[in-house]
């Protein structure tokens, strides 16, 4: 029993201490999946270009130099700011900057009509805002989504402050976008 308790406390304390966030490439791929190709600019600016915040080193050898400052494949390079990005951490730690950039990105994507409409379409046919719809939005971001009734109910409570349906939906998409769980690996 003692051994079991020890193991339990150890595992749960390790879990509480350690977040392993997915890197910038994973985040951008999920966001592009949810919000569409027109989200690329916002995602690149806020997430891909901030590898030191989100983690995700690039492969320095992918840059094939053909001149002093020319590369054979500049548009596909994942070393956005230069070869020093190979040194970025594999995984990022939680930080104010990371949270601010996620908030900024999610806001921009939700507020942009093109990207928001794309996401709405992704979520499937919309009849009304109910538990099942909220869970469909959550599952867009998180392929391992497990139903969390408490969270779903809080989300539904949160939208009551908004009158227009579009605003309510934007609120829901925003909350799912910033939720940390889908960002962990």
């Amino acid at each position, binding site marked *: 029993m003692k051994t079991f308790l020890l193991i339990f406390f150890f595992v749960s304390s390790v879990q509480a201490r350690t977040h392993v966030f997915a890197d910038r490439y994973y985040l951008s791929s999920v966001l592009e999946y949810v919000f569409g190709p027109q989200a690329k600019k916002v995602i690149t600016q806020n997430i891909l270009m901030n590898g030191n915040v989100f983690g995700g080193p690039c492969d320095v050898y992918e840059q094939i130099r053909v001149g002093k400052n020319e590369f054979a494949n500049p548009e596909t390079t994942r070393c956005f700011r230069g070869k020093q990005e190979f040194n970025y951490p594999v995984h990022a730690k939680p930080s104010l900057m990371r*949270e601010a950039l996620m908030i900024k990105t999610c806001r921009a994507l939700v507020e942009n009509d093109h990207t928001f409409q794309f996401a709405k379409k992704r979520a499937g046919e919309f009849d009304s805002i109910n538990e099942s719809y909220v869970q469909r939005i959550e599952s867009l971001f998180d392929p391992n989504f497990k139903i969390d009734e408490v969270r779903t109910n809080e989300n539904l409570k949160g939208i009551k402050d908004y009158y227009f349906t579009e605003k309510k939906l934007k609120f829901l998409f925003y909350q799912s976008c910033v939720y940390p769980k889908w960002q962990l690996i």
Partner: protein
Amino acid sequence: MITRRKWIGMMAGAGALTALSSPGRRFLEKIVHDNVRNDLFRPQLHETRNYVQINFYGAPSRLSFDSILKPFDDSLFVSHPFVANRISSQDRYDFTKVKLEYGTEKINGLNLPYLWGETIPGVNGNTHRLSELLENSLFIRGCRLDFEGHPLNGIQQISPVQGGLSLNGLIGDQSKSFISSVSVGSNPVARAFRSEKSLLLEVPPGESNYAEYILKPFLLEDVDSLFSDGRLPAAFDEIAKTYPSEFKDIVELRKQSLKYFQKNIDKFTHEFAQLQAKYTELIHLAIETNTTYNIQSPAFPLQVSGKKSIKDILGPFSIEEKFFPDLDMQAFIKSGEFNYWAQEFALCEFLLVNNICQSVLICPPRETGDLITSCVSGKAYHFQHIEEMFDAKANVTSLKLKAGSELEKLNQTFPMDAHDTGIVFDILTTKQFFRAISTCLYELISQLKKTKIGDKTLFDETIIHLASEFDRNPSTDGYGSSHLHNSNPTSIFSGCLKGPSLIGNIYAGTLKKNDDEYYGTIGVGAPVKELGTPIKIGNISSTLSTLLRVKPIVKRDPPLIDEKTYRSVVERAQNIEGVS
């Protein structure tokens, strides 16, 4: 049917809504914002001191600034013609004959490079004596480094144990500021950040407005009212209660982020632009008012006595085997550009005075630094275009241009890593560089002194550390200099220091041929009695840790100052007989 009471109520509500929407709300926010900003971004006393490292990655010669070779009148000193920081004269008839010296100025009993005796420009047309900074200074010399080469020695200035924690990482870990640590510059020093839990924000050197880049994640663009009506944070708080407990720290961080969003801090970017303009103007004035000997490079055709090579004759006046004939060398240097340092000093002031960050590292933007870029030249010749002829009878060497040689118009950059910079150019460029840096440093320190934190000033709570990988060893022919990794000068400025103070022993050197090829007194580290060895980078790091109030990274190497009084705990700085 709507009653009159209900109707009035509805109209009042609509009116309130209008007031709370843009632009009415933005106006209200501005008023609130100004007051709230003062609370959020006011300098405070922290657990650790603030840390600024100004790193001259590329390792320029420090003879003009803080390579203190003859600190006292009775210090052993072996003078070498190319261990120099000043041009004292030039022969009127033979421009190849130039007298150079290691010039000093005695200030508070200490012989410092003569730059410290100069007057520098300040804001609003004021001038100041640079020597005022010495009141709060500590110079450490004679530090011997373990490695050869720029990267490893550069990294050690911030992270003394390879792959271990860095000073800015330690500060960042304990910082409660908005941003834990910032660096500007793309080189191994900027990449040496290591911490246990904090993050480094690297500002790409190409950004036009560093402040905007740093604050970009928190700047509020014009958006729909979904996010500007204040309901979101409250709603977020409620939903965050449903987050699993493992996300508690993320919730806290997110709350802070939303708070900064609401405060709408775009006003800072305008402030920063003004700071940048200020430092740009100071650098311009520092260069304009820089006085050195009015030196002219020789013209063709040229004749000198004795058998000499092109390099012997023209080397001191050349760079990268390019010679600029008949040139006002000082005017040539003054035509160059320098201004990225303006933005970097502006960033230091901006971050510290607004309590945005406690740890700032500024370095040259590229992999190795330049002293001055884009000096505009009318004409230059490569050595390969020049012909040398020795007349044995007359014992005269003549230089002339080869047939078909063409003038090359170019913009010349002077790198800090001056392997191929002639001594005359090196003296001119380093003097100008450090004069401009000192001018910016003076202004930065003035602003920190003006900023109060209770009964202290921000300068009392800030450590400014000037460093590079090593000093330089001038060649024996006046063309170029090599790395001197056995000499690593360090300067520290802080309100908590009482100076000027000098720590560290060096060898006096010799003019005789020796295995190490060290000629004259050049700063090679010698043993210090209390340590039993020359000063090591670990001692400097521990000294900085003591001042910063953080745990030392290299515990086995003690600090050079007392933990309480910050006074030196080692013997008075000596020049010891010997070479290395």
